[in-house]
């Protein structure tokens, strides 16, 4: 059974600092997603990573995928308060569509 683990689960950062969130998954998949969720809101799609070595960047967030290690990272550069949210990675089993989510990383960026 596909399992997805994220760490850390809680992250408190100072504005302007850099940090990385990690997502490990247990079995082969052909893609990985990152979502953002604000309190009381639904999930907003950030990135879809499709192949080994894929890297995508949007603003202060950069995501990468290593399919051999079954590892994705979400790197935050020069954090700002607006990035405070919970970030989820999600992985569907290979050739399937039902996504398995990690437990989420609750990020708080403090001034």
């Amino acid at each position, binding site marked *: 059974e596909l399992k997805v683990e994220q760490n850390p689960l809680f992250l408190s950062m100072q504005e302007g600092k850099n940090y990385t969130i990690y997502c490990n998954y247990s079995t082969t998949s052909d893609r990985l*997603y990152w979502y953002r969720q604000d309190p009381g809101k639904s999930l907003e*799609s950030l990135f879809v990573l499709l192949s080994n070595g894929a890297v995508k960047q949007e603003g202060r967030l950069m995501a990468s995928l290593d399919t051999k290690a079954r590892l994705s990272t979400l790197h935050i550069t020069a954090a700002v308060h607006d990035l405070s949210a919970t970030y989820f990675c*999600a992985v569907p089993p290979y050739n399937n*569509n039902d996504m*398995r989510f990690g437990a*989420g990383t609750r990020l708080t960026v403090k001034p």
Partner: protein
Amino acid sequence: GAGVSQTPSNKVTEKGKYVELRCDPISGHTALYWYRQSLGQGPEFLIYFQGTGAADDSGLPNDRFFAVRPEGSVSTLKIQRTERGDSAVYLCASSLYGTGVEETQYFGPGTRLLVL
């Protein structure tokens, strides 16, 4: 265009009652998904529709849960004999084809179900 919508936004019911939760996907999306999210956790897959048929219902926890999508658009998640443990946010998502590697699932705002 409009995103995924879900009604009601909140539902409070008593243990043992029957509830229906509705999802309107993005127009033209053939695939529809239901997830359940408990407090402090990631969403948990329940069921996936491709058109009118349930392509994968392996996530439904037991036979009290049932979902339909009779015309391939709106879907209803039905929960019989609700239990307190059913309390959660029920999320619906849709995607354009349901197949294809670069498919993104777009989520609705969710229905917060509280079983007293």
